[in-house]
């Protein structure tokens, strides 16, 4: 069976990618943010995964409001980075773990999920930025990807509990896969931010810091929270954090928090990461 070698949580703020494109990594605004990810990058170099499962949301780039899938799964051989309006970015395309993706889709449907299955689709910063944060800017990505899109844009968005349940099926799919691949799971989005309304710019550093510890040690309260609770604590767009629950539910109940980093503000967002490993 394939093996889960780590669960990562990370922000996917588009300005992170733009900062890298513009060579701003070592400027005073950005250096503390990127420096904190070095431990995560090092962990990834040593972990040598074969497949990265990336749970993220599209931001009005690959899906418009004409059709809004609550959950979508990519089964493509390759995923091009999408033009988000600034023109194409200088990063390589992503190879898809197509066979494993189909296996995951089979398992999801057996477990009564109803995903949109995507054979040809581009990926936006929600997937690009986490990959850049943990793998840098290689000529070719060292892993194949399994993208999972979660609608966090148009209400109703899925419940935290439903994201959790998807994570359980993801684990089953990994453990029932006959290959011997090493799999990392990246739950992305957040942390606290709000882009719209008079509360725009809302950042809740205390809640963010509690989240980074709590998602590791005691995720139960976050699974039980309502979507409105997420919006209240983390801001309207901070509700993206529900996507970390897919990752967390796929891990053991007991995990070790190997690395943790927090920085605010990154653009308009409380930003950070965790690296989790299953405890024995």
């Amino acid at each position, binding site marked *: 069976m394939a093996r889960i070698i780590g669960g990562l949580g990370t922000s996917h703020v588009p*300005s992170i990618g733009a900062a890298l494109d513009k060579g701003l990594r070592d400027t005073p605004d950005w250096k503390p943010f990127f420096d904190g990810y070095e431990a995560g990058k090092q962990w990834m170099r040593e972990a040598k995964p074969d497949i990265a499962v990336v749970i993220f949301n599209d931001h*009005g780039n690959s899906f418009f409001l004409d059709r809004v899938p609550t959950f979508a799964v990519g089964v493509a051989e390759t995923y091009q980075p999408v033009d988000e*309006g600034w023109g194409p970015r200088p990063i390589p395309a992503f190879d898809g773990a197509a066979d494993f993706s189909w296996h995951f889709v089979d398992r999801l449907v057996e477990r009564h999920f109803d995903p949109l299955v995507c054979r040809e689709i581009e990926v936006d910063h929600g997937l690009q930025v986490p990959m850049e944060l943990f793998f840098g800017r290689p000529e070719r990505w060292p892993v194949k990807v399994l993208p999972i899109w979660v609608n966090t844009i148009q209400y109703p968005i899925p419940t935290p509990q439903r994201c959790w349940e998807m994570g359980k099926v993801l684990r089953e799919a990994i453990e029932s896969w006959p290959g011997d691949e090493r799999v990392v799971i990246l739950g992305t989005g957040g942390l606290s931010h709000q*882009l719209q309304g008079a509360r*725009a*710019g809302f950042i809740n550093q205390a809640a963010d810091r509690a989240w980074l510890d709590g998602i590791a040690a005691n995720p139960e309260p976050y699974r039980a929270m309502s979507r409105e609770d997420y919006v209240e604590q983390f801001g309207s767009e901070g509700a993206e954090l529900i996507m970390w629950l897919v990752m967390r539910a796929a891990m053991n109940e007991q995990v070790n928090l190997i690395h943790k980093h927090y920085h605010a503000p990154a653009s*308009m967002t409380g930003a950070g990461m965790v690296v989790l490993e299953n405890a024995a």
Partner: protein
Amino acid sequence: MPENSGTIPDTPLFDRAGSIRGYRLNKMAMALGQAENRDAFKADEDAYLTRFGLNNEEKAAVKSRDWHEMVRLGGNLFFILKIAAVDPTPITQIGAAQAGMSHEDFLYERLGKKRHG
């Protein structure tokens, strides 16, 4: 979308009403993900907006880059950001317009950005 569409103050959720109200505006903005549409927008903004069926109120909001008004008319930030890409505007400036603050105050007071040097 109305500011009172949810139960959390000053926090609009992009729900059915907002999605319907902003549909044309967001569709127009979404199309700016394609280079040829960006060229058309830059060449003749009014003609481009007409092509997507925007009414005069929506057109005026776009043409004046009134971010607060675009959101009020149902624009969702993730879509209307593509207008900011054609006509480079930092997202924090759009945030400041939502919050009704100056850009400077928004950066340092609301976001807690640190001053360097």
